[in-house]
């Protein structure tokens, strides 16, 4: 896959409230144009906050078309951002930031090295499908922290369900693994908002968990697709050249992708897993029919 191909490290900076617009008015039409001209081999989408709110958009292209493709991308997104609503693009200056953020509505390059794991054919495809699904999941609403956390919850619960169904692991095994950090209890105590959030959303969260665990027909299409993608990862562990992973390794790999693509910070990840643990601890017998 990597032979004669090359990854471009592209970052699109704009306020999170406009990420949805960027995806549907900028990225999606761009992908269609590229598909039409056969410009792209693969792409990924990753929410990111380094240097300001941005969407990382690594693109796999043919090496012999590097310059012309890079120029095309540059002019496309510059034109796209020029049509964005005018706004103050100066970020508030904060002393605890070592560097100022990049201006909003700009395209920047080379700020990261595309993950080395994406050399593997199956990973590239999995993450590309995941990126497409990510866009689809936000087709109905704007993007904010609560939306990202809820999406992460759905993705994690589905992944856990698939892992339990396709490996010798139990739900408890998956819950234990992320909670081996020594300071985890202190963090729970300190996160007062966590309890408040949990109590106020307990009913709907429990219903959501119940639906996911029982693969309800009511689940949105993209989530059922995610279930399928995860299942595929367990059932078709790559081509013949790739190492065969154990169940827990596959689980960790996919959960790593969730964290990377949704830009989950350590705190957000912790909050999310705390939700899941709380729900499963309280209603363990009720989760499955």
């Amino acid at each position, binding site marked *: 896959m990597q032979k004669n191909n090359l990854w471009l490290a*592209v970052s699109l900076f704009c306020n999170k409230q406009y990420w949805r617009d960027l995806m549907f008015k900028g990225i999606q039409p761009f992908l269609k144009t590229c598909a039409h001209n056969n410009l792209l081999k693969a792409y990924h989408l990753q929410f990111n906050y380094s240097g300001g709110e941005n969407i990382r958009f690594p693109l796999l292209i043919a090496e012999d078309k590097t310059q012309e493709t890079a120029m095309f991308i540059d002019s496309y997104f510059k034109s796209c951002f020029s049509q964005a609503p005018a706004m103050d693009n100066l970020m508030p200056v904060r*002393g605890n930031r070592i560097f100022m953020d990049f201006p909003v509505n700009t395209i920047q390059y080379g700020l990261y090295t595309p993950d080395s794991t994406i050399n593997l054919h199956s990973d590239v495809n999995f993450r590309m499908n995941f990126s497409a699904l990510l866009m689809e999941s936000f087709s109905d609403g704007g993007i904010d922290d609560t939306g990202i956390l809820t999406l992460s919850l759905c993705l994690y619960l589905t992944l856990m369900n698939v892992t339990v169904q396709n490996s010798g692991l139990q739900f408890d095994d998956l819950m234990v693994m992320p909670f081996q950090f020594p300071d985890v209890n202190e963090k729970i105590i300190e996160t007062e908002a966590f309890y408040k959030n949990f109590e106020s959303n307990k009913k709907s969260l429990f219903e959501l968990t119940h639906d996911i665990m029982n693969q309800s027909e009511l689940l949105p299409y993209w989530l059922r697709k995610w279930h399928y993608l995860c299942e595929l990862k367990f059932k078709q562990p790559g081509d013949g050249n790739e190492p065969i992973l154990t169940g827990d390794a596959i689980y960790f790999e996919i959960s790593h992708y969730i964290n990377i693509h949704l830009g989950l910070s350590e705190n957000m990840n912790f909050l999310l897993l705390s939700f899941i643990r709380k729900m499963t601890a309280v209603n363990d017998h009720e989760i499955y029919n």
Partner: protein
Amino acid sequence: MGSAKLNISFCTVCLNNESQLQQTLPANLEDNEDYDNLEFVLVDGNESDQLGKWIKNNLGKYLESGRLVYYRLAEPGAFHPALAKNTSIKLGSGEIVCHINASEYTGLNMAAYVNEVFKVDNNITLISNPVTFHEPTNDHPAGYMVGKLCLKKNAFMAVGGYDERMLKPGNEDIDLLNRLKLHGTGKMLITNPVFGRSLNQKTGKGFSVCKSLNNVVNIYISHCTPAISEIIFLYKDQYFEKGMLIDHSRIAADNYCSSYKKPDFQYRYSLREIEKRGKWKESIPKNVIHLYSEPNHNICLKSFYRNRYDVLESSVQGARFHAVTNPWVMEKLLTLNSIYYNQLIMEDNVQQKRVQVNPSGFRKVLLTSNFQQHSSCYN
């Protein structure tokens, strides 16, 4: 070459590393008892009262015999590593002087080994393997230190000793070796493991940053571009440092070629112009901070009005510096400062092909010798 044993001085400085010295020094004295023409010079940076008492109580016999000479800095806080090492080596009376770090064990009969080596070739610097004081990362280069370094005192003095512009720990030994090479002095590595033992030297990193954290009054940042920030460090001793921090991964981020070209930098960060150092003073109640240039501190480089949000506003260029309050950010900035401060001076010495430093001689410091309160000596 005669057969008489060379006069050797093992010189050690103690800058807040008493616990290490209390382990190594007694062992080093015992391990070299068979070599007559040897003295141990210990310079105490006076960071606490404990070391002097401990020396008196535990190593009195060596003081009485003259085997150990103990010097103590009269005023605490006046030492930095380069100055402290110069002081101890200058006080050594041997024709061969060895800087032995407080964390280093000499090993059995190291003095005899040094004698043998220098009898064969005295135009060398005999060193232990440099160790990383600051681990290198993708972000910044390593800071190195050499635990044991032996050479002819004449050669040491000819190159002006350690560069006293290097006010922070790390790389001062490497800079000395660079200049000794230009002077024509070769280098030889101590390969015998008997002479290679040491305590964990990486504690030095924590010490340097912790010391800076304790000494810092405030750190201020002015964001120039997404890739460049100007930093001001204000210290309790009224010194300030100012420099430009550069994130090389961001410098050309607006150029689409950066999306596919390999980075042309070795380390992500660099700190430039950190040598802009002088004294600072705050006018109260006006809340105006003045930065004065070295050496006489009589030229005011810049003045800032400190507003109620702890933001420094320059009256001249309109630059605004925001106070850093996050301990993680402070530590990161102090670490980079510590690494790049000496690194820049070392690079400058290399570029200028500078052999001799400290053209006016070593800085003079007031010391007491062997607990004689009233007979102070100037180094």
